[in-house]
C-alpha cells in the first residue's frame, strides 16, 4: 500500500501529542456518532504500489483499440501534435499551479494566457477573448447567454450544427429560460430564405457552425447580414484550423466567436479534456464569462499581467455573476498557445490547406472508384457525407477488419468522413480500394 503522506509516523505522533490527542481517530472524535463510517461500511480494494497500478491501467488501455489510420472527426479531430507541445506543457510549474490569483508569483502563467487570448483574437478576428471554458459546446451555450436579455430569449440554430452541441445548448437554454428553434437544412446548409422566414425581433441570436456538422461551409456572411437586419446577433462556432482560411468570425459579421480548441494540440483522449474558446467584439467584453487576463503595471511601472474584470465572476458577484465558471481548461489553453506558436500563421494555414486537399482527394476517389456518392452539393472543408446502397455498417466493418477506423455512420446509408493533414495518399488509396471491394 502506498500513500503520499509525507510525515514519518514519529512526526505524526509528535503532532498528535502537541494537540493532546492519542491517535488519528481522536481527530474526528467530535463528529456525531451517526455519521461516522464503520470500517466495513464501504467496499474498496486495498491500495497498491505505483508499479502495480500502472500495470493495471496499461492493461485497461490495452482493451482499447488504437487505429493508426482513422477518418472520423465529427467534433474530435486527429492532427499532428508537435513533440514540443507535450514537452513544454507538462512542465511541473504549469501543471501544478493553481488559478493565478497571486499574480506576482504567476506572471509566466498569466502572460501565457494573455498570449493565448491574443491568438484566439487573431484566429477569430475578434477584439477580446477569455481564458477558455470547458469545451466548444459549453462555449456555444455561454455565448447564447451573453445575448440574452428579457426581451430576447429566442435562439435560432440550423440543423447543420453538431447534434451534441444542439443537445448542450438545449440543456443550458432550458436552464436560462431560452427557447431554441432549430431551422431545417435540407441541403446541408442553412439557406437564407429559411432564415429570413424564421427571423423576428424577439430573437436574441443566430448560432452557426463553420464548417458545419456535415463538413459544409455555411454562407455565414450572408446569413449574419440577414440576421443583423433584425438586430439578431451572430455567433459563429468555428473550427480553429478552418479559421485560418475561411473568413474570420468578425469578417463574417458575428459578434461572438466560439469553438472547440481540441484541434490545436489536444489528443483525442476519448473526448476530453478539450478546450472551449470564446471571443467577442469589444462591446460585449463585460458579458464574457470565465477568467480574463489583462495587462497592467506594478508599483514600479513594470508591465504586469493580472486576472481582471472579476466583477463579472462568481467569487465576487455570487448569485449575480454572469456564470459560475471557476476552473477552466487553462492547461489546454496553454497547449493551444504552444501549438499556435510552433505552427505560426503559415503553418496553421498549411494544416488547413492539407486538410482541405486530402479530404477532397478522398471524396473524389470514393466517388470515382466506388459506388459512394456525396450527399450534399456544397463546398466542404475537411469532412463530407457520402451516401451508399451498401449499409454503412458493412462498409465500416470491412475497414475495421483492415485496421482502419472509417467515418462516422450518420444513418444506415450515410457516413461522415474526415481527412486531416495526418492522412496520407497511400492510406487513402488503400481505403478506397477496400470500400471498392464491398461497394464497387
Amino acid at each position: 500500500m502506498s500513500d503520499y503522506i509525507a510525515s514519518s509516523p514519529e512526526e505524526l505522533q509528535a503532532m498528535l501529542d502537541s494537540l493532546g490527542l492519542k491517535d488519528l481517530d481522536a481527530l474526528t472524535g467530535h463528529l456525531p456518532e451517526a455519521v461516522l463510517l464503520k470500517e466495513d461500511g464501504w467496499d474498496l480494494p486495498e491500495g497498491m504500489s505505483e508499479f502495480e497500478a500502472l500495470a493495471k491501467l496499461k492493461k485497461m488501455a490495452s482493451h482499447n483499440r488504437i487505429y493508426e489510420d482513422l477518418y472520423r472527426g465529427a467534433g474530435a479531430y486527429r492532427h499532428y501534435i508537435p513533440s514540443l507541445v507535450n514537452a513544454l506543457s507538462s512542465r511541473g510549474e504549469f501543471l501544478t499551479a493553481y488559478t493565478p490569483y497571486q499574480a506576482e508569483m504567476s506572471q509566466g502563467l498569466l502572460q501565457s494566457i494573455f498570449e493565448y487570448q491574443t491568438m484566439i483574437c487573431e484566429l477569430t478576428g475578434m477584439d477580446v477573448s477569455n481564458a477558455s471554458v470547458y469545451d466548444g459546446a459549453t462555449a456555444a451555450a455561454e455565448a447564447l447567454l451573453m445575448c440574452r436579455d428579457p426581451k430576447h430569449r429566442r435562439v435560432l440554430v440550423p440543423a447543420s450544427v453538431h447534434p451534441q452541441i444542439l443537445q448542450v445548448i438545449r440543456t443550458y437554454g432550458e436552464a436560462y429560460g431560452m427557447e431554441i428553434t432549430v431551422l431545417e437544412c435540407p441541403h446541408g446548409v442553412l439557406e437564407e430564405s429559411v432564415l429570413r422566414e424564421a427571423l423576428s425581433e424577439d430573437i436574441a441570436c443566430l448560432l452557426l457552425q463553420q464548417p458545419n456538422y456535415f463538413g459544409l461551409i455555411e454562407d455565414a456572411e450572408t446569413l449574419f447580414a440577414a440576421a443583423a437586419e433584425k438586430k439578431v446577433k451572430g455567433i459563429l462556432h468555428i473550427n480553429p484550423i478552418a479559421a485560418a482560411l475561411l473568413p474570420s468570425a468578425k469578417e463574417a459579421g458575428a459578434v461572438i466567436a466560439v469553438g472547440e480548441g481540441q484541434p490545436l494540440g489536444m489528443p483525442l483522449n476519448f473526448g476530453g479534456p478539450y478546450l472551449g474558446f470564446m471571443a467577442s467584439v469589444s462591446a460585449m467584453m463585460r458579458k464574457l464569462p470565465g477568467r480574463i487576463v489583462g495587462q497592467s503595471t506594478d508599483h514600479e511601472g513594470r508591465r504586469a499581467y493580472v486576472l481582471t474584470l472579476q466583477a463579472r465572476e462568481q467569487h465576487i458577484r455570487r448569485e449575480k455573476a454572469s456564470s459560475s465558471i471557476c476552473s477552466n481548461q487553462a492547461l489546454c489553453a496553454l497547449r493551444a498557445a504552444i501549438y499556435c506558436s510552433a505552427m505560426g500563421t503559415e503553418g496553421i494555414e498549411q494544416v488547413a490547406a492539407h486538410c482541405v486537399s486530402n479530404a477532397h482527394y478522398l471524396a473524389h476517389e470514393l466517388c470515382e472508384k466506388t459506388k459512394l456518392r456525396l450527399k450534399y452539393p456544397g463546398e466542404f472543408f475537411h469532412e463530407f457525407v457520402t451516401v451508399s446502397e451498401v449499409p454503412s455498417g458493412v462498409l465500416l466493418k470491412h475497414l475495421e477488419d483492415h485496421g482502419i477506423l472509417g467515418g462516422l455512420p450518420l444513418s444506415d446509408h450515410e457516413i461522415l468522413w474526415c481527412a486531416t493533414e495526418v492522412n496520407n495518399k497511400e492510406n487513402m488509396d488503400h481505403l478506397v480500394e477496400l470500400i471498392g471491394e464491398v461497394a464497387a
Partner: protein
Amino acid sequence: MSQLIFERGTQGHRGVALPKLQVPAYTLKTKLRAEKPQLPSVSELEVVRHYTECSQRVKGVDHVFYPLGSCTMKYNPKVNEDAANLEGFTAIHPLAPEEDVQGCLEVVATLEKYLTQITGMDAFCFQPAAGAHGEFSGLMTIRNYLKRHHEDQRTVVFVPDSAHGTNPASAVMAGFTVKQIPSNAEGNVDVEALRAMADETTAALMLTNPNTLGLFEKDIMEITKIIHDAGGLVYYDGANLNAIMGIARPGDMGFDVVHLNLHKTFSTPHGGGGPGSGPIGVKRHLIPYLPSPRIENGRIHEDCPESLGRMKMFYGNFGVMVRALTYVMILGKEGLRRTSQVAVLNARYLEHELSRNYDMAIDQPCMHEFVMTLKRQHHDLGVSAMDIAKGMIDRGIHPPTMYFPLIVEEALMVEPTETEPKGVLDEAVRVLSELLDLAASDSQALRACPTTTPVGRIDEVQAARHPILRWQKGNE
C-alpha cells in the same frame, strides 16, 4: 526577459514543418479570409525558450508549500501523468465503436464504483468538467427531478452565507432563486433559521461539510432531515471531501446529490486553472434524471428518456478521470482514510501552532482547513490579510486563500493538505510569526512585499478600468 511571444517573433521565422502534400492541392472556391491571423513567427528553439522562461515565472505545488484554503493543493503524483498519457487512452476517438473503447469504459466504470463507495452515493455522471460545472449539472438534475415530479413551484435554493461563490451562481444559472442561510456564532448553519425558511418552495439546500470555516456541521443529520421533510433535496459541494474520506460519507448524512472535484481531492493537477473534473453522484432515485448519455456495463446509453440532457460534448474530461482512478487505486481503502486523517491532523496542528500569534475566526476544532482573521492587526497595525499574504510570497510560501469566507473579516483560509511533512508546517509557522513581528516593527516593509518576484503588487484597478486584454503592436 518577459517579452511576449509576439515580440520575440521575427517575420519569416518558422516552427514545425508539415509533411509534403501528396495529393493534388485543392483550392476552396468559397470566399476566404481577407486578413490573415497574425500568430507568432518563431522557430522551435524560440518556442522552447519562451515557454521554459514563462514556466520559471510560475510557482506550483512542485515548488512550494501551497496552503490555499478550499483548493486542496496536494501533491500531484507523477505516475498519474504516465497513466493518463498512455497511447491506449490518448489516441482513442470518442465516437469509435463501443467494442473498441472497452478500456475507456472500464476506467469510467471502475472510477464510478470507487467514488460511490467513497461518498455513499449510488451512481456517478462524469460529464461535468469542473466543480462549478458539477454544481450546475447537479442542480439541473434536481430541477429535472422536481419538474418530472410536477414540483415546479420549488424554485428556492438555500445557500449558507459561508458558501463558495460558485454555489449561488450555479443555482441561478440552473434557474433557481437563491436564499442565504445565516451561520451561527459557532460557524455552523443556523438550524433554527433553516427550519423557519424551509417550505413548499424549497428546491434544495447546498452545503459543503466540513464547511468553508473548516468545521464539521454537527447537526448535519437534522439539517438534511429538515430539507427532506420540507420536500426538498440536499446538495453536497465536494470541495472539502478531503477531510472525510473513510470517516464519514455525504450519502450517509442524507445528501441526495454531490459533486466531487477530482482535481482537488483526487490529486489531479490544477494546471493553472484547469482542466478539472466535477463528476456528480446521486442517490438511486435520482439516477434517471442525470445528464445523458449514461455509461453502464461497458455500454454507452444514449437513450435516457428522463435525463436532463447533455451538459458537455462526449463524456467529460476523460484524461482527468484516468489520473484520479490511478490515485484511488494506489491509495486504496486504508490510504484514503489515512489521507483524510492526516489532512485533518496537519490543519489542526498548524492551527494550534499559529493560534499562539494569530486569531482564529472560530474557536472550534477544525477539520482539514481553518480560517484566521487579521482583523485585530488590521485595526492595530494597519496591515491587512493581503499584506501577510504578500509577505509569504517573499518567503517562498504560496499564500492562503484571502478574504474568504466572506463572513470573516480579513480572512486567511489555510489548507495544508496531508502531503506536506511536519517540517514544512513548522517552517510556515516560523514565517508567519516573523511576518507578524515585521508588521509590528516595520509595517511599511510588509506592505512593500513582494519584492523577490519579477513584478511587485499590480495595479488591478487600472487593469479593470482600462482593459488591455490582448497584445497589439504598440501596447508594449
